[in-house]
């Protein structure tokens, strides 16, 4: 199949070609900018509480700090979300679940590590039952603190939004963040 208007040549399987065309279309600047703008205001984290930082995460999305004004709405099913927040310590048992949840999320997906335990163990650094989440997931934003204040969560959302709007991410199978904030 030849599609001269678009400027690219698509040959072979129709479905495959259509997917390629749509991908190409979405990567073109005006559309891409619009897409990134839309994604940045619809960062929906999956409701996956791994540890005690969840209390501050909950406070961040509740009335006083109200993260929903950034388009940040905790949602229940991983299939409809694009942001995984690791809230505090990730134990070995939970890491298995976290991997499955991450795999279930559709592209583009982002990971925020919240709390110093998620960064490098924190107060539990010599515990025998924890993993370092940055070894499992490509991480976009790290939030230090034990626990980080809800303001810090809000700031991490803004940082991630900026990153998305500056197109510093790749949409696709090899989701690798470029650089770190």
């Amino acid at each position: 199949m030849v599609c001269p208007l678009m400027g690219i040549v698509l040959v072979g399987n129709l479905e495959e070609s259509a997917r390629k065309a749509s991908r190409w279309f979405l990567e073109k600047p005006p559309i891409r900018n619009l897409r990134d703008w839309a994604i940045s205001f619809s960062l929906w984290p999956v409701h996956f509480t791994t540890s005690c930082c969840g209390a501050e995460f909950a406070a961040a999305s509740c009335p006083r700090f109200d993260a929903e004004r950034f388009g940040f709405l905790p949602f229940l099913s991983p299939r409809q979300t694009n942001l995984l927040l690791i809230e505090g310590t990730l134990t070995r048992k939970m890491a298995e679940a976290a991997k499955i949840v991450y795999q279930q999320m559709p592209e583009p997906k982002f990971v925020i590590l919240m709390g110093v335990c998620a960064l490098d163990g924190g107060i539990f650094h010599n515990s025998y039952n924890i993993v370092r989440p940055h070894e499992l997931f490509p991480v976009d934003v790290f939030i230090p603190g034990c626990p980080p204040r809800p303001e810090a969560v809000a700031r991490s959302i803004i940082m991630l939004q900026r990153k998305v709007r500056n197109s510093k991410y790749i949409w696709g199978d090899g989701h690798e963040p470029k650089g770190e904030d």
Partner: protein
Amino acid sequence: MNLREKIEEKLKDIATSIEYPRPDLIVIAVNRDRIMEAAQRIVELGFDHLASVEGVDLPKENAIEVIYHAESYEEELRNTIVELKTRVARDDPKLQSLINVWPNALYLERETWDMLGVVFEGHPELKRLLLPPWWDDIPPLRKDYKVKVEGIIVGTK
């Protein structure tokens, strides 16, 4: 008759020692094979549920001490905690399960098995509780399970 006298009367023939280290604590040590009997007598006194089951690893004496803390919600008994303890061999830690005497030993004993490897005979579900199910190392609360130790000790006299 106060509580201490009652306990001494009831348990003197099976307890190896009865101590009162603190005003709110009664420590009863028994032999491994009399634990069921001792527990039943403590329940008859009114201490009808457990606050804790714990194991203490004593590698020097080649033993694991299993400690039961029983308490009561009755007004006259609630100020006291009864501590029932016994020792099992470290290489073959087996003890009768007290789940029929104190029903809430269900998870407490299971945790002790998980953390110290004490096998409670007659417990219906001895499987991993807190540790991941694929855990195959030695039980972590034993003293020979080492974790990295940090710490600065400020010298004082």
